[in-house]
């Protein structure tokens, strides 16, 4: 249902409440108001809740992601520093000793012993010539004379100058990392110094991140092989079961679901100096705990507000519709009463006129018959005296009956007599419009009020004045087409008189019609009119000492202008 329909329904239901249709209309009105009010209250609430949830969700995520990124990046730097330190020591040895000295097994042993004391984690140290042959070696194994020329790392170190290997299991099934440095001598030949480091220090660095038991951190190689022990995702040299983008330099945080079905956040920071990436895994339930609590609270608030709104709107609509109904009923009743009074007063007027007009001839008949009776009664010699006296008596009795009737009629009319009160014409016009607004609204006739402020109050009869304006405006309404216009203007004509004009954009009247519109029983409404409305109106205005004028042009509309004295002196009327 769109809003226009709703609105039309709403206004239409305010109109036309005849019979049992009325209850249906109020039901529709109630439903429409209810839906409208619910929509305009709940829609903003929903929008607000959604926006708020979205905003809060992203801000909370930022709050979690940034520390995660920072921690990962910091730890990565620690690792890089560790490797850089090892590399620089080896580089230093390579550059401070000549090839000949390093080839000497004794010197190699001495250097190795010094390094063991100064740097932890060193496993062995060896010199390899540019053909890939191990020339000297210090460490737990005997690798002297071993040929590395076919190995991948050898090729790489020759090209790049330095090399850090992935973790590999040594002969003792212990994880190791090999680092190697290429040294070029002045005469153009080159040699390689290679050291092996055990990875126990890696675990220390990871432990220093201070992770809770639900989280995990480990190194992986670029090809996804786990390099340090992981709590949840496999042993060293296993393939990491998680998939996530590794990125280039920056630490990147992504959402993922791990093989155990947990929703996790994965932070991955790749190394620049080695083929490693540091991976930090945190379960979402852990980090989003506050978010979930907040969301459930918000949901509770939302649902309870919606329930409250529905309750209030329901009650409000109920009251509103009841009030509208009451007001409509009251207005309907007032209008009916008014119409009844109007009818009675029309009849009363007619009755008074008839009774008064009949009374005079009746008085003459009475006197003539009385004289006849007197003459007959005084004449001693009158023949058929009894017969004549009987006839005259029956005439007099009939006159008596007529008198009773006319007096009753006059008594009835008297109840409709004028009662002068001080009244505000503007107020009275607006009051009267109350009876007709509904029809005007339904037919889309515009009622324009052009009332002068501070119009002087006049003394007049409220009911009869209402009748005057009701009759004229009613006629105007009958004359205008749907969507026409009726303009009501009031003004102070002079120090004794106020004026009210009622202009319509209706069909207008011909000259001929104009001549007889105030005649009783003249009507252009065929069966619908009594032809008394304007006659009565004219009578009332004249009686109040006022005047009424009409201007009209066929096809253009009519203007009725009523002039009323501020102080009414009751005239003879019609």
């Amino acid at each position, binding site marked *: 249902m769109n809003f226009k329909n709703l609105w039309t329904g709403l206004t239409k239901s305010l109109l036309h409440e005849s019979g049992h249709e009325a209850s249906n209309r109020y039901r529709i009105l109630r439903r429409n108001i209810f839906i409208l009010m619910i929509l305009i209250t709940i829609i903003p609430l929903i929008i607000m809740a959604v926006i708020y949830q979205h905003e809060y969700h992203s801000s909370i995520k930022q709050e979690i992601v940034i520390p995660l990124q920072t921690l990962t990046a910091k730890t990565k730097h620690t690792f890089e520093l560790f490797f850089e330190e090892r590399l620089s020591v080896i580089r230093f040895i390579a550059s401070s000793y000549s090839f000949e000295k390093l080839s000497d097994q004794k010197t190699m042993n001495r250097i190795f012993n010094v390094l063991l004391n100064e740097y932890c984690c060193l496993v062995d140290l060896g010199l390899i010539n540019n053909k890939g042959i191990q020339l000297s070696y210090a460490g737990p194994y005997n690798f002297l004379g071993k040929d590395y020329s076919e190995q991948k790392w050898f090729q790489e170190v020759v090209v790049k100058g330095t090399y850090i290997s992935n973790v590999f299991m040594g002969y003792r099934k212990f994880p190791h990392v090999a680092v190697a440095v290429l040294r070029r001598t002045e005469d153009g030949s080159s040699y390689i110094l290679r050291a092996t480091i055990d990875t126990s220090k890696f675990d220390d660095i990871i432990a220093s991140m201070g992770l809770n038991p639900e989280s995990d951190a480990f190194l992986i190689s670029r090809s996804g092989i786990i390099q340090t022990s992981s709590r949840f995702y496999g042993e060293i040299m296993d393939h990491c079961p998680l998939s996530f983008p590794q990125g280039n330099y920056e630490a990147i945080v992504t959402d993922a679901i791990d093989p155990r079905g947990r929703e996790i956040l994965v932070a991955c920071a790749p190394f620049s100096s080695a083929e490693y990436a540091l991976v930090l895994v945190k379960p979402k339930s852990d980090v989003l705990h506050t978010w979930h609590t907040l969301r459930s609270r918000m949901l509770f608030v939302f649902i309870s507000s919606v329930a409250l709104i529905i309750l209030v709107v329901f009650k409000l609509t109920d009251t509103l519709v009841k009030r509208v109904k009451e007001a409509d009923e009251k207005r309907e009743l007032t209008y009916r009463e008014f119409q009844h009074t109007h009818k009675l007063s029309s009849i009363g007027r007619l009755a008074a006129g008839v009774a008064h007009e009949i*009374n005079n001839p*009746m008085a003459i008949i009475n006197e003539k018959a009385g004289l006849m009776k007197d003459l007959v009664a005084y004449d001693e010699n009158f023949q058929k005296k009894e017969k004549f006296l009987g006839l005259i008596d029956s005439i007099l009795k009939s006159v*008596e009956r007529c008198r009773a009737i006319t*007096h009753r009629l*006059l008594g009835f009319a008297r109840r409709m007599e004028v009662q002068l009160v001080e009244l505000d014409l503007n107020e009275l016009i607006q009051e009267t419009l109350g009876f007709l607004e509904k029809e005007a609204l339904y037919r889309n006739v515009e009622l324009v009020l052009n009332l002068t402020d501070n119009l002087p109050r006049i003394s007049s009869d409220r009911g009869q004045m209402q009748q005057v304006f009701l009759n004229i405006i009613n006629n105007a309404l009958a004359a205008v087409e749907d969507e026409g216009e009726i303009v009501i203007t009031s003004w102070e004509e002079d120090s004794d008189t106020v004026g009210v004009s009622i202009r319509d954009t209706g069909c207008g009247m011909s000259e001929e019609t104009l001549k007889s519109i105030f005649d009783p029983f003249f009507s252009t409404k065929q069966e619908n009119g009594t032809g008394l409305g304007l006659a009565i109106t004219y009578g009332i205005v004249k009686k109040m000492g006022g005047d009424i004028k009409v201007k009209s042009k066929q096809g253009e509309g009519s203007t009725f202008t009523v002039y009323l004295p501020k102080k009414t002196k009751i005239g003879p009327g019609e």
Partner: protein
Amino acid sequence: MENLKILLVDDEEEFVTTLAERLELRGLQARVALNGEAALKMIEADTPEIVILDVMMPGIGGFEVLRRIKAQHPQLPVILLTGRGSEKEGVKGMQLGAFDYLMKPLNIEELIKKMQEAIESHP
């Protein structure tokens, strides 16, 4: 009551002349005026003993005639006739000094009785 001088004032000639004739048949002296001005002139020329006055008349209305009569002759009794059957008119007339009021059509016996009462209360 014999030879009582009455002035009947009413614009309805048929009515008022017939009434005058009937009163004369009963031995009373009734004269007729068809409007307020004539009535006032006749009262000035020859003051009657009682005036029967219709309220509704063209020209000077009944109440105005009554007011002028009472101004000149406060002791002259006036009985009003009203065609409207309105008590209000009657009451207004009595406030202006009329002795009483009667409604048309008249009952002649009632009129004579009222005139008698009026004469007795205005010695």
